[in-house]
């Protein structure tokens, strides 16, 4: 009788533990996703602001990437629209899109990565003084 109970406990543990672990992973993943969404949104806004003030793609990109902390910078990509500085005169709108590839621990289920994007828009303030 005692052996049967031990075996039953083991079976119950084997059944419940994976579910509990999956839930824990889900909660952690959702939290990471939330952090990534906040960081990319904030970074895009900071990048757009730098772009509006300097019209410098390199500085805007560097600012955006720096603002994505604590995300991994090698997984961050920055897109600027319009892509050419000459197409962004004072008063026009500039858009900075910061993307982040968040690796999910569900690759076994065909859910490898998810892409998170933040968008920042600013009116160009830069004046090109010769």
């Amino acid at each position, binding site marked *: *009788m005692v052996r049967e*109970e031990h075996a*039953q*406990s083991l079976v*119950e*543990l084997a*059944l*419940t533990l994976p*579910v*509990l672990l999956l*839930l*824990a992973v*889900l*909660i952690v993943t*959702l*939290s990471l*996703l*939330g952090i990534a*969404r*906040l960081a990319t*949104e*904030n970074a895009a*806004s900071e990048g*757009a*602001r730098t772009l*509006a003030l300097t019209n410098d793609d390199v500085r805007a990109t560097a600012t955006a990437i720096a603002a994505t902390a604590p995300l991994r910078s090698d997984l961050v990509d920055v897109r600027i629209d319009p892509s050419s500085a000459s197409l962004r005169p*004072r*008063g026009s*709108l500039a*858009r900075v899109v910061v993307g982040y590839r968040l690796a999910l621990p569900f690759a076994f289920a065909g859910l490898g990565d998810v892409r998170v994007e933040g*968008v*920042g*828009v*600013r*009116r160009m*303030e830069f004046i090109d003084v010769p």
Partner: protein
Amino acid sequence: MCRDDRGQALALLVAALGFAAFVVGAVVETDTRLLNRLHATRAAEAAAEAAGGVAADLMLELRAEALQDHRAVDVIDAALADPLLAARAEGAARQVLASMGADLTRLTLNRRSTELSAKAEVHSRNTDGLARVGVQPP
């Protein structure tokens, strides 16, 4: 007693599932609220900066005209007296906000000490945002 023990794992699992559902819901809700708040604040900043940029352009024009005519002028008062400033600033703010999916609730332009203040109140994703910028005269 043995039979009572048999349902323990199931009860624990149900309780854990319920708790996990609550935690997941709370995480998603908090994340969405924080993101909406951030978006509304950033939209308000963009709107206030756009309006401030328009005001700065006008103040530059007024300063250039005054220098050409060799007369002294308080460009902040002169800019605020311009009937087109409010409409232009609001247009610029609305243009930025439209591309961010936000609406302008109110734009206030006034003098604050030695600068022209542009305060934007916006509504985005069921959240209110507020930002102010100060524009120094040229």
